[in-house]
């Protein structure tokens, strides 16, 4: 079954100012969905709400037809992996252990090493496997945090600005990887970016969040 996320009349705001007016949206697996928006437009809040990390909203978010409010933390973590803009700079945890932490309880122990090696390989982070998180550059850590989300082995992946600290080539590579994962493995991948060009080039479906409105960017508007 293809994973599905649906927003139903979703509204949220901050200090009485609506960041999003009631909006409907349906996303399903096999697609890379891109979201553009300026700083402070509410992109990160939208991601946190869809990920079930924020409950201060009206309307509803449905995960495979079930309201997110009625799902448990475990259930959500089995379906949705999240990449935020936070970069935890830990001294005592290396990349391999981080991936293990994400895959723990979702991949059986015999296949753990193989699974982690695969996730390291596809995100081009295998050479950092034994480095500690505190010793990685911003860009490296961002790639690693994305790889960690993959290691969580979910059908839905929400990535808030996953390419913000990456150089031009790495940006292209990571976004191409997201597209490939969505197409080949029927994952639903929803990412945000300031970079309109990047969203244009790779996303199958594109949205813009501005002035409290979530609008689909039509093909002809892209030119």
């Amino acid at each position, binding site marked *: 079954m293809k994973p599905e996320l649906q927003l139903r009349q979703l509204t949220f705001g901050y200090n009485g100012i609506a960041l999003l007016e009631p909006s409907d949206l349906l996303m399903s697996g096999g697609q890379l969905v891109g979201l553009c928006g300026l700083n402070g437009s509410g992109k990160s809040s939208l991601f*946190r709400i869809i990920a*079930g990390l924020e409950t201060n909203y009206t309307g509803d978010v449905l995960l495979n037809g079930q309201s997110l409010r009625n799902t448990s*933390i475990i259930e959500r973590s*089995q379906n949705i992996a999240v990449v935020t803009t936070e970069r935890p700079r*830990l001294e005592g945890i290396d990349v391999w*252990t981080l991936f293990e932490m*994400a895959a723990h309880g979702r991949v059986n122990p015999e296949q753990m090493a193989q699974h982690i090696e695969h996730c390291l390989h596809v995100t081009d982070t295998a050479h950092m496997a034994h480095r500690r998180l505190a010793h990685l550059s911003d860009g490296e850590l961002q790639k690693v945090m994305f790889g960690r989300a993959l290691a969580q082995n979910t059908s839905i992946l929400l990535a808030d600005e996953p390419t913000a600290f990456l150089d031009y080539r790495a940006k292209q590579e990571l976004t191409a990887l997201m597209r490939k994962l969505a197409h080949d493995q029927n994952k639903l991948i929803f990412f945000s970016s300031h970079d309109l060009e990047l969203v244009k080039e790779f996303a199958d479906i594109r949205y813009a969040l501005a002035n409290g409105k979530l609008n689909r960017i039509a093909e002809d508007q892209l030119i």
Partner: protein
Amino acid sequence: MKTISSQRRLRVTLWITTVLLLIFSGLSMRFGVVELSWAEFVSVVNGTTEQPMHERLIWQVRMPRLGTALAAGGLLSLCGLLMQNLFRNPLAGPSLLGVTSGSSLGVALVTMATTALGWQLEQLSFLGVIPLAALAGALGVLSIILMVSKKMNDHHSLLIFGVMLGYLTGALITILQFKSNADNIRSFVMWGMGSFADVSPSILMVLVLTLGVSYLIIQRQAMPMNHFLLGDTYARSMGTDVRKLRRNMVAICGVQVGLVTAYCGPVAFIGLTVPIVARLLVGGSDHRQTIPAATLLGMLAGLVCDQMSIWLTLPLNAITAAMGAPMLIALLIRSKNGMLRL
């Protein structure tokens, strides 16, 4: 891979610690105020001794004391490890939640009450008044913290709350001491110096059981505790209920440190230093490795500090700090790449 090498480091750490534990346990049986020969010790153990004094010395004095030092050291270190995780701060320790100061307050209150009634605290000691007061104080503070922590969403508020509670009880203790008589103040001060010597076998059983049960509970939470290091958002997205975990960690810590403080006094420094050393030895913060390492190292630290305090006839807390502080400073100077961080 890395995991294998860190598992090897853990194994080496555990083996070396175990060997040292056995050596020091043996020494603690033989040496002390009264010195036994190995032959005399063996004859006590296999029951062939003809000296009832030796038998009493081993079974009723040295064994319980050894057990207490091991159990208390393990409990304090585990608690320190939990605290450092809970506050995501390598300088957190068992005393940070205010539970220790709650115990002190309990004891100070009893001291004050006996003064007001014109009694001497020493006359009441056979009733176990001091430990009971300490336990009541610890549990009182713990329940306040648990109530408040439900309303607190982040560890910073909890940290400030715990520290403030410590100051508050500190102030109350000062007032109580001011109103107390000299002999009772002396009892209070003696309790505050910490000791593993005054624990009865039944209380020792409670300590050992608490260590065993809390170890098993915490060991099962190793992965959630690792998740917790990444921050609340990531931890929750990876399936860890951070509120529940935080509450459980506070409760377990409170019981651990409350019990130890009640019967051994507010033992300082072990709970702070040992988890740091454990992380250095296993080479990381992965709780699957630091939990067993910190527990065993804590037992060793409890034992070594207690032996030192016997040999030098100094109070326990003087030894823990005198040994712990230089060790921590040396580690700080030697660690180039910030290995002391989480």
